[in-house]
């Protein structure tokens, strides 16, 4: 039923072409119709030619064969073309978002500099202004670093510097670093760590990116005045790290997509959320590259728990 409906939907050429924002000659649905006309014309031509030289049955078979062949070829070409147009559309959406996200911190730096230059440089005001410029610069660097890591993962050129380190210390460092963010969001973070935990064996910088991302994600999705709990405990030869919030949770329909690159649930979401849609994708890839596993459980409207485990010793 769905495919029949889909077929009739595709016949609405004008609407479909508008969807891709492309001129008529570059629109898959229009080309499909055009191809149909060419096929019908070819079949008539083949029929006329065949009926001159062959028996009617043979002629009919030739025509049928040619028709089927042309139809299949046509469908394959149009199908692949459609996929290309979809990718290109997704790419331009992506570029629009990227340029927005990269320009925000740069605009903040630009305006802050303008304010500093037009006013008093000295004293506390000037110091705060310069600190703000520094923060925005760091934000910009983080965005670009995440981008580069995603590219390296894709390209298989990522370099890991694994060593033993304490996940407990790393978590404390991250919490200290993001404390202004949690304070302004009015979120309390509780950190519970089992005693006597062994260090993990992984790339510390990369895991720091994971912890930072999962923590600020929980903070961002929590309502002011609520708490977020982080747990650290032994799980066999692994150390388990988890974070639970009582935020909005992950809708069931989105659960499968959440670790995908540049995942954004819908157009509404597109205009309501900052970030690149790279954080959870990177978290998953980085944990897996370090020999661990990552996952989450969530109830919509009640909250989510994101967790990962990392090995305590060199595996494989």
């Amino acid at each position, binding site marked *: 039923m769905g495919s029949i409906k889909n077929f009739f939907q595709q016949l609405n050429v004008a609407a479909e072409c508008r969807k891709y924002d492309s001129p008529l000659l570059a629109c898959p649905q229009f080309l499909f119709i055009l191809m149909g006309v060419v096929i019908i014309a070819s079949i008539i031509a083949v029929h006329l030619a065949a009926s001159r030289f062959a028996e009617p049955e043979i002629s009919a078979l030739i025509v049928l064969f040619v028709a089927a062949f042309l139809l299949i070829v046509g469908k394959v070409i149009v199908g692949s073309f459609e996929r290309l147009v979809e990718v290109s559309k997704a790419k331009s959406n992506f570029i*629009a978002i990227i340029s927005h996200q990269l320009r*925000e911190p740069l605009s903040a730096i*630009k*305006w*802050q500099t*303008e*304010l500093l230059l*037009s006013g008093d440089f000295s004293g506390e005001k000037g110091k705060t202004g310069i600190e703000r410029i520094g923060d925005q610069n760091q934000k910009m660097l983080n965005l670009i670093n995440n981008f580069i890591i995603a590219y390296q993962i894709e390209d298989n050129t990522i370099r890991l510097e694994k060593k033993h380190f304490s996940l407990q210390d790393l978590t404390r460092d991250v919490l200290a670093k993001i404390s202004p963010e949690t304070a302004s969001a009015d979120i309390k973070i509780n950190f519970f760590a089992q005693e006597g935990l062994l260090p993990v064996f992984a790339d510390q910088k990369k895991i720091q990116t994971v912890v930072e991302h999962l923590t600020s994600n929980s903070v961002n999705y929590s309502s002011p005045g609520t708490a977020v709990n982080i747990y650290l405990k032994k799980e066999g030869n692994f150390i388990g790290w988890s974070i639970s919030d009582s935020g909005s949770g992950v809708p069931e329909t989105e659960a499968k997509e959440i670790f995908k690159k540049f995942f954004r649930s819908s157009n509404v979401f597109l205009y*309501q959320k900052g970030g690149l849609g790279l954080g959870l994708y990177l978290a998953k890839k980085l944990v897996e590259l370090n020999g661990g596993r990552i996952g989450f459980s969530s109830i919509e409207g009640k909250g989510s728990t994101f967790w990962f485990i990392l090995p305590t010793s060199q595996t494989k």
Partner: protein
Amino acid sequence: MDKITNQNKKNIVIIEDDPELQKSLFAALSVDFNVFQAHEGEGGLRAVFDLKPDLIVLDLILPKKSGFEVLEEIKGKQEFKEIPVIVLSNLEGRAEINRVMALGAKAYLIKAYYDLAEVVKIIKKEFDK
């Protein structure tokens, strides 16, 4: 929300989620205007309905309710639809700009292309009309 208001000054509501951009805009605009700040769409809409300001500065990518929705709701209400809205965004797609202008915004300014001083000038000009 900023409570200190000056009766002689015009009231402006800024709806902008980026705290740094918000602070810079506040610093530049509060010299000449009474500035009220909101950090997300729903709160921004509430501020507009409560205060009925003389002008609104609106970002587009906002938590809870996007700038498009905020603009649509303001323009959909008889009592508020005449308030001039200046959209300040770093989105530069033709579709976004067309959509905002069709909804009745006064101007679409791309943050990266404008100095703060220019933004202030454009807002002042809006009041001189």
